[in-house]
């Protein structure tokens, strides 16, 4: 030993690991044959977690290791980007969720054995809280001759449920995941390239039915998101029907689908029955009647906090209905009506709401022509067809006066802007107001923004001041 020290300048006692470390190393090397873990101290556990081979069979490791370094290593080995904060700071949860997502995303009905999913589910059912499935593969279509295709085309349409184009059946999965809270689904195929077919981007009726039943069986689900899946009225109704009595659902997201008025009606029914807090119907096809149904439900609802109806076809009919409903509603905090083709009429009714309601916090009216739509109204007045919905005719008169004075000029009566400005001066609760691209005068926009800003600032100030006073007391 001495000699070694003398000759080797780099030699040091520290490189000779202690016996306990050697023992632990031995345990690590033989971990699969003889797992010793629970008896160890926390530091020794860390040692083992840091060194145990990552190729251990999952069913073995899942039962031995709790959340910790081992799962972090496995995650980092498998994926480049690992943001554990999205998974409740649990590496194990992250690993299993992503693993299961991978399996489901690569599941090809008819070819992949459902057992692979079930095996995984038995291992990870306690850890999975969120499933974000970004694609669902259709079954492989057997190459058919053109004649046959033409021949079967008709039959396909007739009995399209039996087409064999069903995706992964969630019924085998969801009732087993006892901790599942969030489910994000997209019926699409990533990077399909030149194999593009519309059927790849929509769900079949049987898919819809199985999914609805699966959702019903999953009692812990809080968030359900089905987007970019070409969800039609019929399927939407089917889903909603099964979700009516769901005990825990709080958030529903059907954004980027093609839900129409009848689907919206069904959702309105859902609003009255369930305890939904957040409803997102962004980018759908909901028109005035559907919006009316939703508004009707909204006037009775006491749980909904956020309603997103951006990029629909509400028009003034739906917008005004919703604004009316808000006169009775005291719970809604966030309302988004952007890009709905609403005009100053809705703005007027909304301003009347803002003057009274002090619960709304954020409003989005962007991409609506709030300013210039009075031309229609003027035209209507000119043709003696007074819109009965126009409650604030005074503005129109003034506008009329103005138009008479400047006859050939394009009328620029900023009725909506004025109304909103006036309403905001009375309101203290709104802290966000998006009125971009609404043809409102820039000056007024800045004024409104200033008011919103003041509200926001006041709110920010009040809370610390209250705290201060409390402290002083």
């Amino acid at each position, binding site marked *: 030993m001495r000699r070694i020290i003398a000759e080797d300048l780099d030699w040091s006692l520290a490189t000779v690991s202690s016996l306990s470390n050697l023992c632990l190393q031995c345990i690590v090397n033989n971990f699969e044959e003889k797992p010793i873990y629970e008896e160890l101290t926390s530091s020794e556990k860390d040692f083992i977690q840091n060194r145990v081979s990552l190729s251990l069979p999952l069913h073995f490791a899942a039962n031995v290791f709790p959340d910790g370094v081992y799962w972090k290593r496995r995650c980092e080995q498998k994926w480049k980007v690992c943001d554990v904060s999205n998974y409740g700071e649990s590496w194990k949860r992250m690993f299993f969720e992503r693993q299961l997502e991978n399996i489901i995303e690569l599941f090809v009905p008819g070819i992949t054995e459902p057992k692979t999913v079930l095996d995984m589910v038995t291992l990870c059912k306690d850890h999975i809280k969120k499933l974000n499935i970004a694609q669902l593969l259709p079954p492989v279509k057997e190459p058919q001759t053109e004649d046959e295709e033409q021949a079967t085309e008709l039959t396909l349409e007739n009995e399209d449920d039996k087409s064999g184009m069903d995706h992964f059946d969630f019924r085998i999965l969801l009732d087993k995941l006892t901790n599942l809270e969030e489910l994000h689904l997209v019926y699409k195929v990533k990077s399909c390239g030149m194999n593009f077919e519309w059927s790849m981007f929509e769900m079949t009726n049987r898919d819809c039915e199985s999914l609805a039943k699966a959702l019903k069986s999953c009692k812990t689900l809080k968030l359900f998101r089905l987007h970019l899946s070409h969800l039609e009225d019929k399927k939407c109704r089917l889903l909603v029907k099964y979700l009516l009595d769901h005990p825990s659902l709080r958030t529903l997201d059907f954004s980027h689908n093609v839900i129409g008025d009848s689907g919206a009606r069904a959702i309105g029914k859902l609003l009255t029955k369930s305890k939904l807090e957040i409803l997102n119907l962004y980018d759908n096809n909901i028109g005035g009647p559907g919006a009316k149904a939703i508004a009707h439900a909204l006037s009775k609802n006491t749980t909904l906090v956020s309603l997103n109806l951006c990029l629909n076809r509400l028009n003034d009919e739906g917008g005004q209905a919703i604004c009316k409903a808000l006169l009775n509603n005291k719970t809604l905090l966030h309302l988004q009506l952007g890009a709905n083709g609403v005009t100053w009429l809705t703005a007027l009714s909304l301003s009347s709401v803002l003057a009274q309601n002090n619960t709304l916090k954020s409003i989005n009216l962007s*991409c609506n022509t709030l300013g210039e739509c009075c031309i229609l109204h003027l035209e209507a007045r000119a043709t003696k067809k007074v819109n009965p919905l126009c409650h604030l005719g005074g503005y129109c008169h003034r506008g009329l006066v103005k138009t008479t004075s400047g006859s050939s000029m394009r009328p620029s009566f900023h009725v909506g802007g004025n109304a909103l400005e006036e309403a905001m001066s009375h309101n203290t609760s709104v802290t966000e107001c998006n009125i971009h691209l609404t043809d409102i005068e820039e000056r007024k926009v800045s004024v409104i923004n200033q008011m919103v800003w003041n509200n926001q600032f006041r709110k920010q100030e009040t809370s610390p001041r209250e705290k201060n006073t409390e402290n002083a007391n």
Partner: protein
Amino acid sequence: MEEADKVHEEAPEPPVLSDNQEDKKGASSFKGKEDPTEEGNEELKTKMQEEKKDVNKRIMSLQKRLTTLVTNIQTAADAKEMERRSGMEDNCRIRDERLKNDAKACQEKVEEIRKGWSIVNQKVVHSELQSVLDSQQQLCAAVIEDKKKLIRDLQQERRVKEDQYLKNLRRLDEEIKLMLDRMQQQFQNLSKAYSEELTQLQGVYQQEIEVLLAKDKAKLDKHMKEHWDTELESLMERRRMVEESEKTVHDVMLENTTKIKLMQLEENAKSQARLREQQQMKGKSVVLNLKQLEHGNKNAAYNAKLEEMKGKILGTSKEVKNLKTKYAKQKDKFMKQRQYLSEVHKRSRQHYERMQKEVRYTTAADARKFEEMWVMMEEEVTQLAEKALAIDSLICKHLGLAWERPSAAFMESPGPRRSQEHDTNPNSHLLQTRHPSHCSQRMMDASVGPSLERDSEHSTGVEEGELSSETLMKVMELLCDETGFLVEDKLRKLLVPMEKNEQTIVKLHSLFAVLGLKEKDLPKLLHEFLLMYERQQGERTEGAEAMENSATADSTSRLIKPNYVLPTLRRFLEQHRKRSSSHQQSSLSHPARDTSVEEAYWDRLGNIITEEKLKLWDAAERELKQYEEVLMDISVLVPETELLRQQNTELRMQLQQILSTVLNSLWLSAEGREKKSRTRKSRPSTTTSSITQCSL
């Protein structure tokens, strides 16, 4: 569209900035207003609050900018989507209209064709028909042309749309790129803004810190200054005090030195006086010393010697002590040993005595038993003899011989044993005489050990009655003188100064020790001497030569001659030795019995029946036996005769009976058959005769 986007996205930015600036200005002005009114910590606090508010505002504005950017992009996208939708709707409408118009035109034309067909039916003339058909064909062609045109148009439109779509895609791509660029830019801007914000905040805080630091420093300086001042004052005071104390110390020291000097002077004077005295004393002492030295030398020598002696004495005393202790130890040890041994000795002695007693008792018991047996045997034997004699007499009487008793005296006299019991034979007498003396001696020994002379005197006195103490003494003296050669010279020397009596006693002791005698044997010895003397006397009287003795008879009338002392002594010793051995034997074995007497006795008894008599007895026996045999034969025959006699009688009885019956019958048939009956009569008579013969 892009431009619009840009405009709309960039539009909200300046007001925010202006707001910020305004806010800052407002805040600063606010600060400016409030600064002079408030003072100290409150001012600072408010300042801090203000700054915090400011910071909050700035952060909020930043957040808002961030969100506005995002929302702007989203709204732009929404707007685009809206536009796309409206465009699509428009296109659809236009197409629909176009299709409708086309359909209308088509229908008109088809109507026309139909009408044409009705005309065709009406027309009969070939040429007309031909022309109508042509026109119809033309119309059809026109319709087809229209359709084709429409299709072409639509295809054209589609192509245009495709191009447009491609362009759109490209544009989107560009837009996305642009957006990315912008996002990057915004990101940079934001980070820049944030960093600026940070530096600003840092600056603010730094200022604050500086202010605070300056304040603290000032305070510290002030405090320090005060502290230093007080310190300085105290130091000055201390210095003054020190100086004062130094002065006083100096004075005191001066005083002390003068005092000390005075005292030193006095002391010097005194010491000088003392020195003088000392010198005088020294002179005296020198003389004395000289004297003392001489003494000292001598003393030293003595002392050395004394020391040596002392050392020796000490050594010896030590040795003595050691020896003493050793001695004491040894003594103890020996004492213990002696005690132990004496105990052992006592025990063994007791044991021995007990054994002796037992032996004596058993021997006595055996002797008695033997005697009894003997007596019994003798009795039996005499009885047997008596019996034999009786038998002899009987035999004699039987034979008819005269019998006389052999010797009645002998028969009457009892056996030698029985006679012993009654009278004392000479042997036992000797023993008996010896025993009592022995016993008495022993008793005396046990009772009075040391007073030997008196005892012996007494005993001799008792036995002889004539032995006086004087004679005894004389005898003893004589004995001592004669056996003087046996006594050691040393003893004799030692005995010289003693009295005569004592001398004799001591000499006797030593003598006894030499001869192996005991004190108890002394009286015996004396007795023997005396006996000897008497015998001598007797001899002399018989031998008539004891004239010399008689001459001295008066003085030592009863003393033996000194010349005989030694032989007598020797004899006594021999006797003594024998006796002691015999005594030992006698205590164990019976005294020897007189076997000859007994033999004679037994012989006599055995021969009480003489040989002749025995021969006679034998002959008589033989005769008697013969006689017995004859008698036995007779005795055998007697029952036979008896039987025969009986039979005879029976037969006689039968005969008589038969005779009587025959006579009766004869009597009955007497006359008729006389002849016959005679024959018959003869027959029975023969039978009877035969019977009588037989019986006879």
